[in-house]
């Protein structure tokens, strides 16, 4: 089980030589404890210590990278059962499954063009999975190449239960390091050989967890280290139960055979139902969520859900600094200012919308802190607000130089008036739900 930073520190040379890149052995030990560093960085640690640390530092759920380059996705490394305990580490991968009998090139283009921006993050369908359905090896290889060519930055999954066909396909796109999925009780040894030969991730499919554990043992015996588990959930309830059991076993029972990322097959005929089953998998521990259609509306919903579930509860979600327009504000419309904690923004913006008074809402980067906290931490101060207002371009289009500040920081109004000559400072309501009355009474 995991060692604490102090325990690890006892095994280090304590010379503070800085060769590891950290200023002290203690700081390095703390990073090792958090799995944010590797023991190999220390040139002077003893072999015995290395062995002890290597063992202790393996995460309970193996970290595996899917794909290559900037758009590669890390899977695994999870530590908790509930997102409120600590952030879920690696947002799940969304993968589109297409049969080699479909128009693979077109589907691959869908995946390649799926990227959108939301709240400052780039979100996309991460992978394309090509399923061997035709029965013809040449067709499969052609399909795989078409996918690789038309989705040049996406991760590739070879969904193929025929080891020979998989081998040929893997060779054809070797440079893309595809994941090999479709190993089951009937072919695991042959598939493991292919995976080992090409250095690929191996996806194991079984009917239930006990059968899965047996497959893991065979894969490991063949020398495969990077494994993804599909426990064969037949419905959404099994997705919930099996994924929960696997994660509990890995985290709480030290079950190494289950310490791997999990794939949730959410493919359904009805695309809206598929979206909801995928939502179940996103919430319940799937590292790869497999779907059969990636319409833009569905992507948007699943990307957003993924973003929400994987948000760090300790780090507030932030909206980008900007002067937001609510409704169609004229140059004389009211101008309010608040911090960029996303919940603050959504609540304030919502109340402004409810008021039906077109307005501008200036959102200042305060590292995601709410109004009072940001003030106390020195981030939402008269100086900083004045600087924002004087220097940020979007304020120039505001004809009515009146700034409405949150009632919670009324104390700043005097200082702000001094620092923003030509601006009138008005104190708004203390709570957002006072905004509709406040704005409407001004408009009257």
């Amino acid at each position: 089980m995991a060692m604490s930073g102090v325990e690890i520190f006892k095994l280090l040379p304590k010379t503070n030589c800085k060769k590891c890149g950290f200023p002290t052995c203690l700081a390095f030990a703390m990073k090792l404890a958090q799995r944010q560093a590797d023991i190999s960085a220390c040139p002077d640690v003893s072999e015995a210590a290395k062995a002890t640390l290597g063992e202790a530092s393996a995460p309970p759920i193996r970290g595996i990278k899917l794909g290559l380059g900037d758009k590669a996705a890390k899977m695994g490394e999870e530590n908790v059962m509930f997102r409120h305990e600590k952030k879920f580490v690696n947002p799940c991968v969304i993968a589109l499954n297409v049969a080699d009998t479909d128009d693979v090139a077109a589907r691959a283009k869908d995946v390649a063009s799926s990227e959108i921006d939301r709240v400052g993050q780039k979100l996309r369908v991460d992978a394309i999975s090509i399923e061997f359905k035709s029965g013809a090896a040449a067709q499969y290889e052609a399909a795989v190449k078409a996918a690789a060519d038309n989705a040049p930055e996406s991760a590739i999954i070879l969904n193929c239960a025929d080891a020979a066909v998989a081998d040929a396909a893997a060779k054809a796109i070797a440079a893309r390091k595809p994941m090999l999925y479709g190993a089951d009780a009937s072919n695991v040894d042959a598939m493991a050989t292919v995976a080992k030969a090409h250095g690929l991730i191996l996806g194991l499919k079984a009917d239930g967890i006990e059968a899965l554990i047996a497959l893991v043992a065979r894969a490991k015996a063949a020398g495969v280290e990077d494994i993804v588990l599909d426990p064969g959930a037949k419905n959404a309830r099994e997705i919930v139960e099996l994924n929960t059991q696997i994660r509990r076993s890995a985290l709480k029972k030290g079950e190494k055979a289950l310490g791997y990322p999990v794939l949730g097959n959410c493919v359904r005929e009805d695309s809206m139902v598929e979206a909801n089953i995928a939502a179940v998998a996103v919430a319940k521990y799937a590292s790869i969520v497999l779907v059969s259609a990636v319409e833009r509306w569905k992507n948007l919903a699943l990307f957003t859900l993924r973003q929400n579930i994987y948000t760090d509860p300790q780090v507030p979600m932030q909206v980008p600094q900007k002067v937001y327009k609510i409704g169609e504000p004229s140059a004389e419309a009211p101008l309010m200012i608040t911090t960029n904690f996303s919940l603050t923004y959504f609540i304030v913006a919502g109340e402004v919308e409810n008021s039906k008074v077109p307005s501008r809402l200036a959102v200042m980067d305060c590292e995601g802190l709410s109004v009072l906290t940001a003030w106390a931490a020195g981030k939402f101060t008269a100086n900083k607000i004045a600087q924002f207002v004087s220097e940020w371009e979007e304020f120039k289009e505001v004809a009515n130089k009146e700034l409405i500040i949150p009632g919670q920081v009324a104390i700043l109004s005097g200082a702000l008036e001094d620092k923003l000559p030509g601006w009138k400072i008005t104190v708004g309501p203390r709570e957002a739900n006072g905004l509709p009355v406040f704005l409407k009474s001004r408009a009257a």
Partner: protein
Amino acid sequence: MAYTIPVENMSGKVQEMTLGTAGRAVAVGGGTTLPFHTFEGVKSHRPVIAIEIQDVPPADWPDEVRAQYDAVSGDAVTWAKHCQDTLKADAIALRLTGTHPDRENRSVEDAVATIKAVLDAIEVPLIILGSNHVEKDSKVLVAAAEAASGRNCVIGKAQEANYKTIVAAALAHNHKLIAMSELDINLAKQLNILITQMGFDTARVLTDPMCSALGYGLEYTYSVMERIRLAALAQNDATMQPPIIGDVGMYVWKIKEVSAAEADVPAWGALAERGVAWESVTATALSMAGANMLIMRHPKAVDAVRKTLDELC
């Protein structure tokens, strides 16, 4: 070696309650496990979906969902019948939006008339919701409780600022009660304590921790619900054992993502499906977190969630 399922038996439970009367009564909550964990205890009742209607036509709802009811929403009774008979709703939520002072400012008497008319027309359980104006609600919901006496309805929502009169009325007329707080588990507990201190049994309360739409704070609602469920089961905290309700439709159908035309935001795809996906995924996600009851608007979203629940239950 045989695999042992890592079962976690918890000492607590979720309260079970029945809504409505006679043949169409509906069971909510119950169970001794985290959502859908049938492998380690007694399972809860399938989450119940209540379809929302209003006492005034929903002129302010986005087109995509409003249009679904244009033929029937001119009158609360036709609307209610449509939900029960055509949409096969297990329950109906009547939101008295028209009573809000900033809206039509309908009177208490108007509201009572609507409630009585709807109750005469339907047999499925009825949830009666105020307009979320704290002062007006305390008057309207008291009268509502009386008007609905004998029908074992749900009266909502009681909040910290107005719970006393509403609780008293729900108690006097033998209804269930929705207790709402704002995304704060400790305040949710406190409100439930205050309610029980008035002699109102927690077995008749539904906890509403305040819903948030997907992308607009969903994770806050999600985690508060999970934590409530854990307190109920793992800590056997009786004040946290009421079933949980998610008022989904109201929060989803006011955001940009359910009304922006595809022409304006091509990256967001088709509007019709987008709205349905938004509401259904919000509801499904909250079912994962522990919602035992969901209030929803769009018939297709209801349909998608039903199919998902078919797989889950």
